[in-house]
Structures are given as structure tokens and as C-alpha cells.
């Protein structure tokens, strides 16, 4: 970690804040302050706009390069261009590829090349004038000039390709942080959730606790690993490696409040353009995890991308669980006593 440029609110300044503390449930604006950071910077996060993702995987590569994440094994899935398969200890960004037989809103399938052919025109330059002019009658059948065939020649509708770069959601109510028995997971001054690899003892409890299946335990290493939202880069005033590398700005980094405004505007823009499927995922502070620090604009239902449709932080039910366990313990003690009660003769 780069301690030099860290803000004064960080763990280095003053009394150590109780950053592994769980947050009370319900929407919460200032997670860092609730976690004990004094005078924290605004909460930072990601807005991943999948409508402009081109599936280049630059984010995956940049993340591995910057964070020194080892390869996860070369396994060809045969299902799509997605051989990363999912988030885990060795994949902190994962680009999902979904093929669907459905035209993208506003997209024009089966483009008819009926306009002037510039190559033909260029070849005809200097010879007889007017020879390169294309005839409008040469457009393919079913596609009169200026119109688009709705169905491809085989009778199949056109496909759309959904690509989405998935990442740790840095939940407002983070189950991994709540259940971590060592305090290895903590809330940073930026409101993100970071795992300290020098504290983690590899109990693996955060792995099944995460409602998104993000955290993984690394083979051979034994510890759990996940996205840190480039805590070291944030401390030095840089943006995370994936956002920096993204060539289409599908991954946008910034203060969460600003990203939410930007995302709302983008959805409105897409709806106006006829992309009815566009929706935000994880941006609402009212959801089961109190809102994600990294949220998404999706073009289909979340489960199509491998995301849970309605995730809930498991510790929301923990008080009820402790109550039930206490009742059961009392019952067990009573059961033991009942065994020893003298039977009336």
C-alpha cells in the first residue's frame, strides 16, 4: 500500500478507527464516517455502463498487471469468448459475453450497402465520367434502398452481443466485511471494502457470505482475495487501473453521488433512443445491500449476466439467527436437565 499520499482520515491518522465494524441496516449516505473515519473524502465507486462495453478485456489485463494478480489457469470454456468465467481470487475484473437472438434497440440489423460505392467510384476516376455511379435498383431483395430487412436471410432474427465487465460491488452493507472473523476486511476512507492480505488467515468465511460470489480463496496461497478498488492508486489520487485502461469509458470511476447522476442521465438517454431494456443495477441505496459502491447499467435482467436479481446481505437476519440459537441452546440445556429429573416411582 502506498501510505505516502493517503489522506489524513486514513488509518494512519490519530486513533485507529473501528473500520471492521458492521453498519446498521438501512440506507446510509456516509459509510466511511459510519465506519469510524473522521472527515473522510467522498465515497468513490464505479459506474460500469455495459451499453458501450466492447469486450476488449483491457480492464482484466490492467487489473492483473497493476495488482500483481496471478493467472487463473488457461481453461477454454467453449461457451463464448469468456474464458475468465467469473470473478474470484485471481480475477478481480471479469468480462461477461452474452449472445442473444434479439436486436439491440436502435441497432439496424442486416445493413444493406446500397449507397454509392466509393471504391468503384475511385476506380472509375479519370475514365469515362458517370461510369461509377451505382444504380439504386441493385439493393438486395427485401431491402429496398434506404430500408432494412427485419430478418436475416436464414429466417433468424439478428443477434445482439451483451458484454459487461463485472467487479466487486463494494456494498454499503458488505457481508464479507461483516462475517470476517479476523478483521482482515475493512472499510476504507473512500467507502470501499478492502482485504488486508497480511491479516487474512484463510478461513474462507467471506467466500460463501458474498451474495454476488465475488470473493475467492486462492489455491496454493490459502488466503482470500478480491478487488481493492485500487486502494493504493486512490490514495495517490489516481483512478483504478481498470477504469484507466477502459478504451470506451464503459468503466467510469468517481464520487458515487456524481456517478449516480450520470447513470440516471444515461438511462434516460438510452430509453429516449429506444433501448427499452436499459436499466441500472445496484445503484439504489434501498436494495438488500444498501446500494453498491460499484453499480451497472445493464441491457437485460441481471441473472443473464450472472448477477443475483435481488441480493440481500446475509447479516440482515443475524440478530434473528442469534435469537434462534439462544433459544435452541436453552432448549438443549432443558433437555439435558429433563434427562436427570427423577422419575416419580
Amino acid at each position, binding site marked *: 500500500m502506498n501510505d505516502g499520499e493517503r489522506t489524513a482520515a486514513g488509518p494512519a491518522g490519530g486513533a485507529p478507527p473501528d473500520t471492521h465494524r458492521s453498519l446498521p441496516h438501512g440506507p446510509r449516505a456516509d459509510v466511511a464516517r459510519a465506519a469510524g473515519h473522521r472527515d473522510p473524502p467522498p465515497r468513490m465507486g464505479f459506474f460500469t455502463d455495459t451499453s458501450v462495453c466492447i469486450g476488449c478485456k483491457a480492464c482484466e489485463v490492467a487489473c492483473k498487471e497493476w495488482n500483481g494478480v496471478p493467472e487463473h489457469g488457461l481453461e477454454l470454456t467453449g461457451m463464448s469468448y469468456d474464458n475468465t468465467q467469473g470473478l474470484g481470487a485471481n480475477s478481480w475484473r471479469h468480462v461477461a459475453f452474452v449472445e442473444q437472438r434479439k436486436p439491440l434497440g436502435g441497432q439496424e440489423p442486416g445493413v444493406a450497402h446500397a449507397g454509392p460505392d466509393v471504391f468503384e467510384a475511385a476506380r472509375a476516376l479519370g475514365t469515362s465520367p458517370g461510369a461509377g455511379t451505382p444504380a439504386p435498383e441493385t439493393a438486395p431483395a427485401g431491402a429496398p434502398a434506404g430500408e432494412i430487412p427485419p430478418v436475416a436471410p436464414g429466417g433468424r432474427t439478428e443477434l445482439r452481443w451483451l458484454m459487461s465487465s463485472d467487479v466487486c460491488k463494494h456494498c454499503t452493507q458488505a*457481508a464479507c466485511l461483516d462475517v470476517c472473523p*479476523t478483521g482482515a476486511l475493512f472499510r476504507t476512507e473512500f467507502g470501499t471494502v478492502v482485504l488486508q492480505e497480511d491479516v487474512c488467515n484463510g478461513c474462507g468465511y467471506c467466500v460463501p457470505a458474498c451474495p454476488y460470489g465475488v470473493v475467492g480463496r486462492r489455491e496454493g496461497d490459502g488466503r482470500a482475495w478480491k478487488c481493492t478498488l485500487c486502494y493504493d492508486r486512490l490514495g495517490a489520487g489516481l483512478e483504478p487501473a481498470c477504469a484507466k485502461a477502459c478504451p470506451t469509458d464503459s468503466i467510469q470511476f468517481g464520487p458515487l453521488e456524481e456517478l449516480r447522476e450520470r447513470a440516471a442521465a444515461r438511462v434516460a438517454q438510452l430509453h429516449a433512443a429506444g433501448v427499452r431494456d436499459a436499466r441500472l443495477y445496484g445503484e439504489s441505496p434501498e436494495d438488500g445491500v444498501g446500494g453498491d459502491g460499484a453499480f451497472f447499467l445493464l441491457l437485460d435482467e441481471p441473472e443473464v449476466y450472472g448477477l443475483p436479481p435481488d441480493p440481500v446481505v446475509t447479516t440482515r437476519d443475524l440478530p434473528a439467527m442469534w435469537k434462534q440459537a439462544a433459544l435452541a441452546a436453552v432448549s438443549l440445556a432443558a433437555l439435558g436437565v429433563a434427562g436427570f429429573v427423577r422419575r416419580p416411582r
Partner: protein
Amino acid sequence: MSESDVTRGGLEGARPGREAVTGAHAGRRRRRRRDRRGEQPVVPEAHFSSYYGRPVLKAPPWRALDIAGYLFLGGLAGASSLLAAGGQVTGRPGLARVAKLGAAGAITVSLGALVHDLGRPARFVNMLRVVKPTSPMNIGSWLLAGYAPLTVAAAAADVTGRLRVMGAGATAVAAVLGPAVATYTAVLLSDTAVPSWHEGYRELPFVFAGSGAAAAAGLALACAPPAQTEPARRMAVLGAVTELGAFRLMKRRMGLVAEPFEQGRPHRLLRGAELLTTAGAALAACADAVGRAGVGRRLGRVPAAVAGAALLTGSAALRFGVFHAGVASAQDPAYTVVPQRERLRARSG
């Protein structure tokens, strides 16, 4: 993923190659796979979308032998501490000794298994770095840190015959902590996103309490002098009734996510657990009745030993069944997506 298998039913898992149709494998509504051998589904088959059928959640990375084994041994130890204290108070030294040794032995092996399952066993002390009520594993570590030395002290005082007062005190405090040790493990499992563990959080502590009682009673029946095991026999019956009753109730309330308990290996384990626990408790009850009539003495210890072995095996099978069912529920996206979709639908009206 890319491999195909030749099975009796033909080629399985083969990819279509050049005949592949766009979107045939992705993002489409698909019927869920179903194990036809299992019981009939509680809920009608659901259609749902998934990302190439891949799990949404990550299954716990724990070894079954370590963690399911710990669930069993922790329950055995916790309930044994009750028998130890009861035996001591009511003048049943044979029962008390078996229970004390059982608790100390079981919890010592448990600690070994828990440390062994860590990715970094050398860092096991980090568990006691903080006190965190939101982490059942952290609370459990503190609980075990207090409980394990007490059981060892109680057993050592009993065996050596020294420091009897201290031994009695340790036995008493261990009996207070024991029920918590036996039941907190249910919270440990339920406090995850694993559907079949989380949704059972209301009844699972009672299942584990009953199962722990049956195991401790089983150990006492098998090893303690028959004249002193009457409390254990009663405990066996009460424990079995609690366990099986709570488990049935749990499955009925869970809906779709009860399915993993009814399929494949978890189903076989849980069915075996049910049969063994019922048989063991019935045998213990018979031995109780026969013993009171005063004709059982000639039979000796054989029925009690058989009942004890059945109860112990049944309790262990239950823990492994619950463990594997949870892992299976995390590995199938249906158990994550379908209940969440239904929840959303119910909320939107």
C-alpha cells in the same frame, strides 16, 4: 466445460461446433436440471435465466471432513458437557467420566480440524484479534477458546483425581457453555448467502441441538456403565425427537431451497441419519423400559452399544448431509435466482 463425455446415454456436454446457433447457450430461459431419482419437487419447475448455467454464488471452500466433522464433534462435545455435569451432581461417576472425556476429546479434535481447514493455519490466532458479534466464526472462536480448556481441565481432574473442586467448577462452567457450542454452529452456516443454509436459520439451531444431544447420549450409552445411563437414554429420545421434528419443519418452510436436501448424496446421508437416529433412540427407549423392569441385565451392554453407535453415526450423517446440501444449493444458480425473482415479483405486486 469444453470436455465432452461418452456415457451410456450418448455424448454428453458436447458443443455443437459449426452447427452452433446464436445464443443457444446464453442468456436464454432454460429449464432447470433435475435429479429424477430424488423425491418429487416441493415447488413446480421454474424457468429462469442464468449466465451459461454457471453459479451466481461461490460455494464455501471448506473441506467436508474438517467442517462437517467439526459440526458433529462440536455438538457431541457441547451436549456431553451437560451429561458430565448432570452425572457429577446426581452421583453417576461412570457417566460423568465418559461424558467429560468425550467432551474433551471431541473438542480437541475439533480444534485440530478447524485449524487444519484454514488457508493459513499458522495464523489461527488472528481469530482472536477482534471481538465481532457480526461474525459467528469470531464469536465461535472466543467460545471455543473458553470452552475447550474447561473441558480438558474437567476431564484431567476427573481422571487424575486431583484438584476436585477446580474440576467441579470447570465441569459446571463447561455445562453452561456447552449448549452454546452445540448450537452456534447453525448460525455459522446460516450467516452466509448459501440458500439452503440461510433459509433454514429459524430451525437449524434446533436441528443441531437435537443432533448434538443424540450424539452425546449415544456416546454415553456405548461407553458408560448401563446402570448409570438412564439420563442418556432419555436424552437420546428427546434429542432425536427435537432433531427430526425441527428438520421436517425446516424443510417445509424453506420451499424451493429445501430441494438440495432431497437429492443425491445429501438425500442419502440425511435419509440414513433419519433411520439411524430413529432406530438408536427406539433401542435406547426399549433398553430404558427393559432396564426398569429389571430383566435387561442379562443382555449386557450389547443393545446399548448398538444404540449408541447408531445415534453417533446418525448425528454425523446429518451434519455431512446438511453440509453437502448447502454446497449443492450454492452451485446451482436456480436456488439463487428463482427465490430472488419470486421475492421481487411479490414486492412489485
